[in-house]
């Protein structure tokens, strides 16, 4: 029998038709929508005079533009309010399940999907958001789409896609103390660049990946897009099944047994080939931080910013423009630099495990005076657990400000903006110019590194704070 990859197995079983000299007509099992990339899709359905084909296959939540304070009140920003109201209106009109502001399962779409158990192995999942790759942690093919494609899924439950090439990234060995899955993915992106996986779908493998929790796996798959990949996935195993068991939308009883039996077949055959493979040693990975304006511009916290040696032309110009924006010089160390804000949250690191890690680290300590510290849970469920576990108390005593769930300062569509020229060390996924507010300077790092920065007020290797 032909040796195939996990990606092939899922992809091939979802092709409705191969278009000659064209893309595949690709069937979508689950579709998530939010308030920002869906309104025009619904508007176009109306213009065409067509409806939503399978409303039960779509799930909605407002997350991108919502305020993270006073969520029980009417949204003050007029345009944000209109988008959220449009989402409510469209969900009501077409019978789409909506997890609205204030409801028990409101939150960032990529946090609530897994929490509800909607995300399951073997599925195809899309959303008008590039971090849909998060759901790949469950052994699903999940990726971001544009609004025209949101319209296609609503109208026909299919999109037209050319099959990407396949890449496997293996990380073997044990992670050192203070090294997290965020460091793994920032390390990988720094090695293969922000465009290094463009055109590919990635499978993450190896013992260091298998030993991760579901939350940590989601962090890795989430940032697949930051190296250009369409998505990334991890073969499901006992960790996956244990996470999913008993959740609202997962099968129950006999159906559960059947599902698990199928899920266990979802793995890459020994001897299957990939178009490209990378291997990394977990022992080489240390706490990472970005110093530039794309996620590939990352270094170990202890290292110096690369010099321009060997760069020329637009490559060098772009590099220097980036450092100029950040206020950094080539060749200088980042450690010890003063920071103004820390942000813990987003679909990358806004889950309960991330909040636990930060709380454990800052317990009994205080944030530095120069730091404004925001912590934004990924969902109401995460917020509730953080309260129940006493984490909120610890964080508030340390001087962190807990806000309500949403995408928040990750993309600063709401009022959670980092002021121009200020430095923020963030657990989110993008350090683009202006991403966290016009002129804001973002450095991406793990929740542990962010916690260490909060306490010292400077760029800090978390392992050095442990030692003290």
């Amino acid at each position, binding site marked *: 029998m032909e040796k195939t990859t996990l990606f092939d197995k899922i992809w091939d079983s979802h092709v*409705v038709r191969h278009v000659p000299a064209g893309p595949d007509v690709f069937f979508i099992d689950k579709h998530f929508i939010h308030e920002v990339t869906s309104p025009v899709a619904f508007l176009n359905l109306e213009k065409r005079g067509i409806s939503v084909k399978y409303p039960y296959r779509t799930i909605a939540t407002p997350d991108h533009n919502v305020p993270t304070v006073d969520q029980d009140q009417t949204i003050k920003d007029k345009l944000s309010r209109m988008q959220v109201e449009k989402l409510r209106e469209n969900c009501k009109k077409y019978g789409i399940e909506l997890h609205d502001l204030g409801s028990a399962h409101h939150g960032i779409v990529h946090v609530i999907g897994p929490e509800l158990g909607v995300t399951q192995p073997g599925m195809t999942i899309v959303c008008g958001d590039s971090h849909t790759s998060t759901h790949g942690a469950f052994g699903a093919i999940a990726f971001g789409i544009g609004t025209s*494609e949101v319209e296609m899924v609503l109208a026909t439950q299919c999109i037209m896609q050319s099959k990407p090439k396949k890449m496997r990234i293996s990380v073997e060995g044990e992670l050192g103390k203070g090294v997290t899955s965020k460091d793994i993915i920032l390390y990988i992106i720094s090695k293969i660049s922000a465009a290094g996986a*463009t055109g590919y779908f990635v499978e993450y493998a190896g013992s260091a990946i298998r030993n991760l929790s579901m939350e940590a796996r989601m962090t890795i798959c989430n940032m697949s897009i930051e190296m250009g990949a369409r998505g990334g996935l991890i073969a499901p195993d006992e960790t996956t099944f244990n996470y999913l068991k008993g959740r609202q939308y997962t099968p129950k009883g006999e159906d559960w047994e059947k599902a698990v039996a199928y899920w266990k077949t979802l793995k890459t055959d020994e001897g299957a080939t990939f178009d490209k493979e990378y291997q990394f040693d977990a022992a080489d990975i240390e706490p990472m931080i970005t110093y530039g304006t794309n996620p590939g511009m990352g270094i170990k916290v202890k290292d110096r910013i690369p010099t321009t040696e060997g760069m020329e032309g637009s490559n060098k110009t772009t590099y220097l423009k980036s450092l100029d924006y950040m206020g950094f010089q080539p060749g200088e160390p980042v450690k010890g630099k003063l920071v103004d804000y820390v942000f813990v949250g987003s679909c990358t690191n806004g889950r309960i495990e991330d909040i636990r890690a930060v709380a454990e680290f800052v317990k009994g300590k205080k944030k530095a005076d120069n730091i404004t510290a925001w912590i934004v849970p990924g969902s109401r469920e995460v917020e509730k657990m953080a309260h129940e576990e006493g984490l909120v108390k610890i964080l508030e005593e340390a001087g962190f400000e807990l806000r309500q769930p949403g995408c928040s300062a990750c993309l600063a569509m709401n009022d959670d903006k980092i002021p121009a020229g200020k430095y923020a060390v963030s657990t989110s996924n993008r350090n683009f110019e202006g991403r966290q507010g016009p002129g804001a300077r973002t450095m991406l790092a793990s929740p542990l590194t962010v916690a260490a920065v909060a306490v010292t007020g400077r760029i800090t290797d978390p392992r050095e704070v442990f030692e003290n």
Partner: protein
Amino acid sequence: MAYDKFTVLIDTAVPLPTENVDTDQIIPARFLKATEREGFGDNLFRDWRYDVEGNPKKEFVLNDSTYSGKILVAGKNFGSGSSREHAVWAIYDYGFRCVVSSFFADIFKNNCLNIGVLPVTVSPEFADKLFAAITADPKTEIEINLPEQKITLLSTGESESFDINEYKKSNMQNGFDDIDYLLSMSSEIDVFAASR
């Protein structure tokens, strides 16, 4: 929705050699709050184009009146980051119909094809030639010939062929979109869905 047909475009071009231009630069998130598709062109490259008071930044290429045209020639890895189709809506609304680069981000490229903006991938060497020719003479014309899949620098006659799959090419030439195709196979999709 059905869009403009694209066959042959001959025009001057705007050069933007910066690499890794992400969709947050093309259209910052704070301008994504509209519920309709039109009007995004005003905020295309907003933070590179205007200062905080809203005054045009003279050094940015869109504010340099020597450059104009329906073709944007961009640096490598153009359109990385967010999947926001608003980025392409902004490019279209501003007046561009074709983006040329030596490397495009995947989702951005799909989004372009889905609304009728033609993404043309050229070799890094050809991209360098285009940048050099346009900056030396902003009146330089470029021909984008979709039926022949060829891009030509008209001042020198140098040309290169580009790839596009037959299905998307036919859509672009006829102004069709994927939904027209998908709706035509509705019953086939029903049968497939029933098996899942």
